[in-house]
């Protein structure tokens, strides 16, 4: 899952970036509203974490601009402004959630997870595909009750496919949601990641969960393609 963090405090931006990356998110950061607005219009983010009092362009203007341009990424406002008026104004301008500083990092993570699920129309944190269970809350994967250990990026790939189970997901979409601006994915990086993921989640004697749709992308489902 890909997150854009627009925050003017360098120290907060750095620690949140580290925490979110370690949690398996692809993270892009912006130090001011103008840069954040540019990034948000350039990449398909699942969640945008947005400060309000920003240099160049303030957070509410960023939010208004995004909604006016029909960019439907989930937006979580992260700010020190705690009045009811501020919260109401932010939510009414199109924010999906509002978190006041200071906050618990786990709460921020939980809200980003919830927003990610909501963005894909999924309510439950547990997604089941046949014998395969993906728990987006604990970020664990089980097959037939057995825990499968996945590195963060492979988990992110599986979670993205699981959130859109049964749907064809293109390579471009995978690249856009799994990799951040730091990574320049090679032409076959998605295929390689899919290959590695299949080896870990597919049963030895059964069909693969990930089906290749030639020329279109991949589908995660329990049945035969």
């Amino acid at each position: 899952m890909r997150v854009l963090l627009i925050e003017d405090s360098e120290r907060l931006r750095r620690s949140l970036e580290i925490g979110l990356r370690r949690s398996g998110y692809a993270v892009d950061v912006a130090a001011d509203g103008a840069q954040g607005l540019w990034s948000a219009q350039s990449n398909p983010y699942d969640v945008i974490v947005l400060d309000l009092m920003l240099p160049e362009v303030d957070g509410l203007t960023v939010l208004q601009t995004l909604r006016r341009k029909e960019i439907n990424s989930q937006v979580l406002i992260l700010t020190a402004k705690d009045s009811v008026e501020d919260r109401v104004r932010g939510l009414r301008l199109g924010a999906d959630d509002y978190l006041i500083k200071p906050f618990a990092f786990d709460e921020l993570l939980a809200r980003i997870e919830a927003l990610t699920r909501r963005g894909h129309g999924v309510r439950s944190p547990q997604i089941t595909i046949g014998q395969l269970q993906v728990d987006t809350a604990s970020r664990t994967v089980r097959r037939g009750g057995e825990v499968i250990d996945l590195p963060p990026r492979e988990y992110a790939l599986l979670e993205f496919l699981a959130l859109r189970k049964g749907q064809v997901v293109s390579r471009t979409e995978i690249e856009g949601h799994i990799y951040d601006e730091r990574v320049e994915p090679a032409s076959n990086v998605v295929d390689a990641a899919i290959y590695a993921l299949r080896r870990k989640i597919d049963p030895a004697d059964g069909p693969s969960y990930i089906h290749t749709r030639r020329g279109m992308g991949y589908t995660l489902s329990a049945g035969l393609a």
Partner: protein
Amino acid sequence: MKSIQRALIFKLGFWAFALALLTGIGFYLYTRSALLSQFDHSLAAKARTVATQVKREGDGRIEFEFSKEAMPEFQRVFHPEYFQLWLPEGTQIAASKSLRGTSLGNAPEPFPTECVWNLPLRDGRPGRAIRIWVRVPDEPSDEADFKGLPGLHVPRGASVVITLAASRTELDDQLGTLLSSLLLASAVLTLGAILCLTWTIRRVLRPLHQVGDQATRIDATSLDHRFPVDTMPLELQPICNRLNDLLSRIESAFGRQKRFASNVAHELRTPIAELRSLAEVSIKWPDDAEQSSQRFHEALDIARQMQTIVDALLALARCEDGRQMLSLDPVNLRQVVNDVWAAQQARGLPPGIDAQLDEIPDTIITTDKSLLISILSNLLANAFGYTPAGGFVICSAHQHESNVTLSISNSNDQLQADDLPHLFEPFWRKNPARNDAVHSGLGLALVAAYARLLQIEVAVALDDAGWFQVRVAIPTQSTHSPAKPVEETSAQESAPKIIC
């Protein structure tokens, strides 16, 4: 509870009643006097008529020929009138039959002085009597015909005294009716006046009630309300103007207070959020020693930033509570300015900025040196910090009779005239974002607070060319008596000027 409306109605009603009563009494007394005078004239006329019945015969004898038919009122039994005729020396000539041998007494003047008086009549009715002199006419007859006849003799040209009394019941009834009518009229007039006054006073005081109602509805959420001035009566316009001024000041103070609270929250929430996130991420994903060391340094920076904010807030609180101690000593102004200037230079000028320090007067002032240094350091740091690349910072001074004015000017590309009134507010910054860990937004607030304590006048101005200037008027002979700050709000030249 005192009420202007009730007081006006009561007092004006009282005066209306008193006026009506006095007018009624005056009218009554005048009318009574006129009626009595008329009554007395009537009595006198009747007395003269009776007296015309007295004649002096040719021999000097007095003769009284009374016609009962012409004047039956002196004969009747029921409600009669009375008279007595006397010679001046006291001899009674005649009396009405109605007296039945009694006399009309109780005159206020001794007999035979002319007078008028009230008396109870013989039948018990209240009466009024008159005593007058009437000259006796001579009968044109031959004196020799009557010579030697018995009777009272008087010389030619003599007079008689007649006393005549009549009932004044009818007069008293008229006066009583008049008095009752006047009292009733006074009461009705008073009642009418009170009703008219009530209506009029309510109508006249309606704008005052409106102001009161509007003032009652004003609370902390409606400080933007203003009283209408143009539609108010002339007498209320100054009050409404003053109330509007007061509301403006309260609204401004509330705004500053809200901004202060919001800014304090933001200034402290952000570093706390930084610290908490740093700690939580570090605990969750402990890294190698090098990264841990970097995070400790970040935590230390955050703690220092928070300490700076808290120290500045405490210093402000000490100034406002009057707990800031002053250590007054003779200070060489030139040396202090040069030292502060050198310290700023030592920190390194931002690239592309030219700085110029003019000659500072070699003046000895009595002040708190550390607070003065703090003021000048803040102002110079701001000048250097906010001057754009390619800009200038100029510091100059002028000696005046009672003070030295230090001017710190810098080229500026951010501040507008509207910003000047906010410059000395705690946490106010041109850029609302808090991405600047160097400036806490409390420096100028501290400058203002210290300036108040040191009786230093600080004024800021922005000229059309964009030069921002801070003028610091330092008294050369400070009295350090308590004084209240005065703020000027005109935007361009003298906004916010802080006089201590």
